[in-house]
């Protein structure tokens, strides 16, 4: 069904001309503008895009990540001015438009998607942001791990989180 022309006209002022481009299954850094008092800062939410729905100004996407063994999902409106940018850190091959099945997965499985063999370089960038985020959460432990190579680190972390979930 096509949208009423006058409604489209109303929406046009709220739409971003440079709407972020990404696909389902991509691991993304969502840069969110946060107003604290009168200061603005950027917070980054990293996770897998598991759904995208709606149209026009109400179009939004869902990003899922695992925080301390607990699944966290945030829904962002694509055209919100509060979304500064969306950076793709990893792409994946997926065969579904909605990755809700990830919700039933535990531990390593939860973010293990077949990677698309591109943008290898950005892997390091992602690792860096991950470490930064972890540092903020658990200062002492994170600094030790930061020295370890990236791949191993991820595995170790997942094992730990899986263990947390069980206990």
């Amino acid at each position, binding site marked *: 069904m096509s949208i*009423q022309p*006058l*409604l489209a*006209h*109303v*929406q046009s*002022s*709220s739409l971003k001309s440079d709407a972020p481009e990404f696909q389902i299954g991509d691991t993304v850094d969502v840069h969110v*503008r946060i*107003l604290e008092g009168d200061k603005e800062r950027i917070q980054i939410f990293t996770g897998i895009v598991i759904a995208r729905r709606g149209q*026009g*100004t*109400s179009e939004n996407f869902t990003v899922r990540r695992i925080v301390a063994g607990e699944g966290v999902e945030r829904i962002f*409106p694509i*055209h*919100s*001015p*509060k979304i500064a940018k969306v950076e793709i850190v990893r792409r994946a091959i997926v065969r579904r438009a909605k990755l809700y099945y990830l919700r039933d997965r535990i531990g390593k499985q939860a973010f293990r998607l077949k990677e698309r063999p591109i943008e290898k370089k950005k892997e390091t960038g992602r690792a860096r942001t991950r470490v930064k985020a972890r540092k903020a959460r658990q200062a002492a432990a994170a600094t030790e791990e930061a020295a370890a190579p990236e791949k191993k680190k991820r595995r170790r972390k997942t094992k730990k989180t899986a263990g947390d979930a069980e206990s």
Partner: protein
Amino acid sequence: MTPTLLGQKIGMTQVFDDEGNVHPVTVLKLGPCQVLQVRTAEKDKYEAVQLGYLDKPRKSATKAERGHVAKVGAEPKRFVREVRLDAPAEHEAGAVLTADIFDGVKAVDIIGTMKGRGYSGTMKRHGFGGLEATHGVQRSHRAPGSIGCSAYPARVIKGRKMNGQYGNTRSTVRNVKVVRLDAEQSLLLVRGGVPGPNGGMVMVRETNRKKSKKA
């Protein structure tokens, strides 16, 4: 005169403001409205202007309608309403009012016709709770329950909320915030819902609700 116009409900959507907050809005197309007649105290015993919105084909208008609008050289209108005034009208018959008269207006009242829901029970019509789903209730889960006392007063009190025709009546929502005015396109964006279906006719005026102390 308080800014008043006739128009149509276009539909709902959402827009972002400068701070990035989302507003659910109803889009209204207002005017242009032509003043078809001016009522005066001497002649009609009250002051008012009669507004008309949206032309309709002459062939679908009655001869009386055609004659009425011919006095101001207008086309027959689909939607005609009078706006009562306290003072003699500032506008002459034939004047055209457009959405820019709402410039600077912060809140409006919207008068429309509710969507008709037909003959409805008390749960839908008045929000009654109905009876229990279980514990021995049979065949009366959506019944209103008791409608009064017994031997005294031996009748049902007037005004008792019961089932009946619901909707398809005039309905007013007051003090609706204006989110944006697009005078170029004759569009007014108001926060929240508005009575009636998309395409339904509405009358919009600056709100007559007194400003709260906070504002």
